[in-house]
């Protein structure tokens, strides 16, 4: 008779869940809210961010993973993620304050954003790239790392669904052009560098029109 015991694996996994590097710094959302007073000018009161046609779009932060936000703040500050707009604000925050701000935005419910509807062609291509990828061009699906419905996996793979199309497109272009390189192990560069302008427009538009929470 073969019966499943509580194996060593389960035990180790349980103990590991408690402490992963990204969660090592757990922020205080209440303190973060006060600190976030300067963020609302762009990221808005509800953290929804804003699509700015033909200009830098401001990402939705509400509901994103705290560890992800915290790492981006650290990278803006250190220059690992190069962004002239964010650098001065991130530089105002010490590690604890950044953790608090990250915790605050992570705690907010993800609001619905205003997104332009994709064209029919973009709808088909964007959905395909997000859900199935295009392996003939070695483009894995967004979902294969960013998780079911591209709602994010942990601190390394942020939610994409319900994010502003302009922001997503700008980031993919930044990778393609070598202007963003703070992704772990060049994983996003690998994919972005194989995407065409049409791919980027389609997948950005499709993702922006997906629900930010389920």
């Amino acid at each position, binding site marked *: 008779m*073969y*019966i*499943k*015991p509580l*194996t*060593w*694996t*389960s035990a*180790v*996994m349980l103990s*590991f869940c408690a402490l*992963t590097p990204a969660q090592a710094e757990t922020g205080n959302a209440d303190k973060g809210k006060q600190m976030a007073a300067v963020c609302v000018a762009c990221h808005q009161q509800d953290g929804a961010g804003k699509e700015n046609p033909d200009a830098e779009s401001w990402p939705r932060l509400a509901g994103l993973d705290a560890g992800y936000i915290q790492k981006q703040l650290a990278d803006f500050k250190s220059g690992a993620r190069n962004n002239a707009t964010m650098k001065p604000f991130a530089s105002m925050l010490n590690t604890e304050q950044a953790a608090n701000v990250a915790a605050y935005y992570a705690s907010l419910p993800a609001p619905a954003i205003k997104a332009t509807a994709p064209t029919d062609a973009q709808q088909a291509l964007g959905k*395909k790239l997000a859900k*199935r*990828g295009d*392996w*003939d*061009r*070695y483009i*894995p699906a967004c979902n*294969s*790392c960013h*998780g*079911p*419905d591209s*709602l*994010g*996996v*942990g601190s*390394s793979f942020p939610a994409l669904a319900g994010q502003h199309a302009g922001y997503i497109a700008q980031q993919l272009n930044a*990778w*393609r*052009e*070598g202007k963003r*390189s703070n992704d*772990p*192990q*060049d*994983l996003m*560069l*690998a*994919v972005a*560098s*194989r*995407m*065409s*302008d*049409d791919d980027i427009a389609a997948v950005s538009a499709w993702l922006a029109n997906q629900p930010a929470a*389920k």
Partner: protein
Amino acid sequence: MNHFTILSPLTLAMVLTSNTAVAAENAPQVPVNLPPPKAGQYVHDVPTIDSLIENDKMKPQLRSVVLKGYDLFMNTQQLRGENVFNDMNCRTCHMGEGRKSWAAPVWPAATTLPNFRGKNQHVNSVEERIAGCFSFSMNGKPPAYGSDTMLSLVAYHKWMATKAPMYEGNIAGRGFGKLAKPAQEPDYQRGAKVFKDNCVICHGEQGEGKTARGEVVFPPLWGDGAYNWGAGMVRLKTASAFIKHNMPLGKPGTLSDQQAWDVAYYIDAQERPQDPRFTGDVKETREKYLNFHKHSLYGTVVNGKLLGDHKNTGEKPFLKPFNLRPRDFAQGSDQL
């Protein structure tokens, strides 16, 4: 940061043919470094799901069965607890919808079987080959031969093989490929470092994988959620080639052969559910299936521990599924 500028033929073709090529001279690239087809090999143009949906000559009933097979292939977890008793999907190993070269594309099963198979020493049908995946890689119990589930999976395989020649065995991109023997014997400590540097971000510190909203996103590599000790992936030659040609995701060919062998060794030196062919004694089982296990660490001692010396079958409430039985064609034919 490491930006590679050497472009593989595939990447070049991609760049040249993409509608709006990312042509900037200094644009960073991560190469798709995969072995090219050899002279004389059959190179299959695997049809796409899009072409299936657009194919108005196909009977809609058949199309829906092929699509059912595709759905089962991509989301095999819908059979969890019935046929699948771990966190795997078909596409976990057979990446790119089972179509991709060097990720063990599955369509050759439809053109090269029935045939003799060394692993079980008899002639296997397509169904029996698929059943093998369920028994070992999915740590499960195969769908019954002739069942709707099995027929759908076979239909997906056969449709992908459309226009491929029957019994042509010299196929480009078949299997996971083969790496040359490493310069240094594979090593646990070096493998641990490769794992930490390249694999942990998705597969976790303990190889436990990652799940989001109830779905497995990154599969476990050992432990109860992973393939069992009878799966092809426990062979170092198989795992090293899979890793070299498919991992990290999106960056095939970026690890050295030595790194691939080392990390395969590290992963294989961890525990996983018992080989369903287990006789009750791990060393005896290793000996009995030595043609297979001579390539794995099963039944050997690593870091002072005898691997596979347990009766844990993971989530599966039994050891051996129905299909693991010898076949006997001894009666042959009296027509000759």
